């Protein structure tokens, strides 16, 4: 399959928005993969964290939207702490989530959560989960 690239695509509003919300310079990442190597949730991800930031560098917002990566991220910040370039990847993941959620799209549908689960979970889990995964 072939992917179109151009100056406009790599400087798109999407790319600008990601950098604005995350406060990160995406091109600082030199794709060493250490973030993916230490990610606790990568076993369940379609695309690895380093691939997500690479796609963001290339302005490929559709590919990022198709993957489950940003929604599986647990915000553990291991990636940011180990990145040799000081890229706060956790903030980039958050920015990518927010770009979707700010369109009023929830990733977790609260009515779908069974009552027993709500009874079992500590509030911390729900407050945190809804904060990260819903609009």
């Amino acid at each position, binding site marked *: 399959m072939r992917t179109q690239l151009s100056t406009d695509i790599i400087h798109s509003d999407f790319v600008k928005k990601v950098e604005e919300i995350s406060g990160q310079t995406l091109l600082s990442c030199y794709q060493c993969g250490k973030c993916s190597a230490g990610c606790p*949730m990568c076993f369940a991800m379609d695309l690895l964290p380093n691939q997500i930031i690479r796609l963001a560098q290339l302005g490929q917002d559709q590919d990022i939207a198709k993957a489950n990566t940003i929604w599986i991220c647990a915000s553990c910040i291991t990636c940011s*702490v180990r990145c040799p370039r000081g890229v706060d990847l956790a903030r980039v993941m958050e920015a990518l989530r*927010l770009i979707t959620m700010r369109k009023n799209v929830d990733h977790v549908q609260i009515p779908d959560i069974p009552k027993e689960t709500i009874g079992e979970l500590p509030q911390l889990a729900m*407050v945190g*989960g809804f*904060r990260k995964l819903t609009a």
Partner: protein
Amino acid sequence: MSLSYYPGCTLKTKAKNAEDSAIAAMAALGVEMVELPRWNCCGTVYSFAGDEELHQLAPVRNLIRVKETGSQKVATICSFCYNTLKRAHLLVTANADKLETLNRFMEEEIDYEGDVEVVHLLEVLRDDIGWDAIKEKVQVPLTGLKVASYYGCTLLRPEEIAIDDVEMPTVMDDLMRAIGADAVSFPYATECCGSYQIVSNPDYVIQRSWDILSSALRRKAEVIVLSCPLCDANLGQKQAELKHRYAQFTEVPTLYFTQLLALALGLDPEVCRFDLNYVDPRPLLESKGLLRQ
């Protein structure tokens, strides 16, 4: 000595065992934990966005409550609350414009000026009381109990809020040694349990729970101590499921560090509220002769 104390929602309900044991243990160490009046939910998880001041309202308002009591320091037991309050404090002290926005929005409150120090109870134990002082007050040394200290994420990451070395923390292990237990180190001590993914992807959290607990079991740990109600739920709640999925899994009780501290200080085990633990630790503690009356 009195210490301003922020409980957070979960400590009042699912993690009452953490609160009760903490208050009792600290009292035995000569520290009165004074609950913050009119506190609100800390607003976890801390928002990483550069443009979401609204999400900083909840934690900053709590810091204002601390100021109102005349205290300059507030301690938490829950790691997540620690992380959220501390990061919010650091954000607004580094960004005067954000602080101003928040202060003006909360016009009915006094201004926050970055004048409150947020600490975690482990820091208080290590820095203000000291391991030697704690050792002296131990009545029931937890001899022969193999304890793996699980730090999780929020006490150590990002580096600016870390209460110890980000990769090789020892504070909880040091506490365990001070109260006479056998501190067992294991490679997954700072690995994330899956956190809020328990809400959207519980199956993945079960996977993480297996990775972490089996690593501790391979190092011969008998119990896990931790500081976060979410880690406790993620590691403690699904052990029946783990037993079902993995033949080599054996149950390992998860406890708050304050529960073991209270026990070692000779307090009545009732105050530790072991009844609230997901995996009852009492049979194990009994077998080790640690549940004296």
